[in-house]
């Protein structure tokens, strides 16, 4: 039984992990904690849904498209909003993403009503068996997809010139700019990339998850906890943290009761962060 739950948690954790990676990237490069990250996941879920309803595009297949759309959207958001608060005081940087989150969640509610929606016939459906464990195929596809995207991002960050430049910024902003790296352009790209991660996760989730305006909030909070757990500044840490949370959620939820599963996640955060204020693997500064 525990194995069953742990596997479910692992799969869930991979999806959380992709969201968390995007969040971690944004923080690492420009020091902004994106409290609106969950809202962006939600927007991607709706985008996927509408592409499916209106154009018949399956969410899983449409993932690259949605990710691309979110990337572009991220660049726009960066240029219009984020880029302008970077030089401001700490409190402004903290609150601006809150404002964006509130705006987008209520925008969704205004445009599409609070009704729950669902993609009815995704190509990934059904259950398979792996040994003694039941695995829902959509979840498996989504989590494998998440790992693929995460892997792509990882490759991009470590093997391409732009990616390395982004890493350089997140390690030492001043040194990076002194070496001729165009901070503004790369900040925008990094932000776009972070949203693309959220977008890909949202598209993959759309294949099996309920879609409604507030759906992203929990994902955003979980991603936040995952990043803090793994340690701000470490993208691998975010993934590890996310998987840990996925498992705590499923196993813990079973042991303590499903209503308490989120309380459990937050409790885990508090415990770990208090024992190890830098998170499990982080070296991020304030």
């Amino acid at each position, binding site marked *: 039984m525990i194995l069953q739950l742990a596997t479910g948690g692992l799969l869930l954790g991979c999806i959380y992990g992709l969201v968390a990676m995007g969040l971690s990237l944004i923080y690492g490069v420009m020091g902004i904690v994106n409290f609106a990250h969950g809202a962006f996941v939600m927007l991607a879920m709706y985008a996927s849904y509408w592409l499916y309803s209106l154009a018949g595009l399956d969410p899983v297949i449409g993932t690259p498209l949605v990710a691309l759309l979110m990337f572009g959207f991220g660049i726009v958001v960066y240029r219009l909003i984020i880029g302008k608060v970077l030089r401001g005081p700490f409190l402004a940087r903290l609150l601006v993403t809150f404002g964006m989150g509130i*705006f987008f969640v*209520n*925008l969704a509610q205004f445009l599409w009503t609070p009704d729950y929606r669902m993609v009815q016939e995704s190509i990934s459906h059904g259950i398979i068996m792996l040994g003694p464990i039941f695995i829902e195929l959509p979840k498996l596809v989504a989590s494998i997809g998440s790992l693929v995207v995460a892997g792509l991002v990882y490759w991009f960050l470590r093997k391409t010139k732009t990616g390395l430049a982004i890493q350089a910024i997140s390690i030492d902003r001043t040194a990076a700019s002194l070496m001729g790296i165009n901070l503004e352009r790369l900040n925008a790209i990094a932000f776009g990339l972070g949203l693309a991660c959220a977008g890909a996760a949202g598209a993959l989730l759309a294949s099996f998850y309920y879609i409604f305006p507030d759906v992203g909030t929990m994902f955003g909070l979980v991603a936040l906890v995952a990043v803090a757990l793994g340690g701000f500044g470490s993208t691998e840490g975010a993934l590890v943290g996310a998987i840990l949370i996925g498992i705590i959620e499923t196993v813990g939820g079973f042991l303590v009761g499903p209503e308490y599963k989120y*309380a459990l996640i937050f409790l885990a955060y508090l415990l770990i962060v208090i024992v190890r204020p830098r998170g499990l693997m982080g070296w991020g500064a304030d």
Partner: protein
Amino acid sequence: MGGRLMRDNRQTQTIMLIVFAVVGLALPLVARARFAQHILIMIALYAVLGEAWNIMAGYAGMVSIGQAAFFGLGAYVSSFLFVEYSVNPWIGFIASGLVTAAFGTLVGLPFSRLRGRYFAIGTIALGQMIKVVFENWQRVGAATGLMLPLVGEGVANFQFHTTKLPYYYIAFAMLLAVIAFMRAMERSRMGYYFKAIRENEDVASGLGVNKTAYKLVAIAVSAGITGMCGTFLAQYSLYVEPEYMFNHTISVTIALIPVFGGAGSIAGPILGSAILIPISELTRAWLGSGGTGIDLMLYGAFIVLMCVYEPEGLMGMVRRAREKAIARRERRGSTQCPNL
């Protein structure tokens, strides 16, 4: 020579305070419509909440986006005592302050080790956790919450039905009390130590400040006042439920108001509340009723615009205007000695 700046500022502050008290006392007599009075009550309440937040965040540097945890807890403590044991709400008022302060201290012990972002996120986590706990706790009504029984109207009962006026004066009295406390605190060792901790914990430590103790005091006081505000709202609305009392939006608003008005100053939360609360209440009344979410969309957009274009809030604008006036005065009359 030193300290003259402090004395002058203080005199101006005292005068402004007296003017404020007079205006505040007279306002509800001028604005008699029930809705207008409701807005005034909310302004006063959120001003108190903003000042309480300021103690932790503006002065001691610990930014909390989870004040709803203390707010709701206070509301529940007094309401539970009233509903189950018929404890007079005024006693419940004091009790909620004490219980919330104690809770804040308990939580503050581990939290005081966290800095900056980690602390803020921790408070979000705390806010969510406590909401979940109360949503599932049958003894206090779980998701349905508690309804406060209607008893005879009167100050002794902390309930008024025919007019909102007494509620306003209670809230305003709370505000005046908090302001008096903040003024005393600003001039005291505690206030200076808080500011030192905010500016640089290590330097403060090296100068003999027991930073853990003082952080806990800041959290406890902030939590206690916030809890008492929760009791006030419970007595005003006559019901408590998790979605109403532990709502995340309350935490965001409580943090937003001092930031908008200017954190780290006494006038900031009052200004911030005086402008933001009417906006939020009016937009909710005009646009929010259909559940369309337009009012909150505007709220969110407003926060973003404020952070981008006016990040230091109103006090920042005031400060810049004052600096420009001083610069202009200096340019005009270079033979005049500016106020040293």
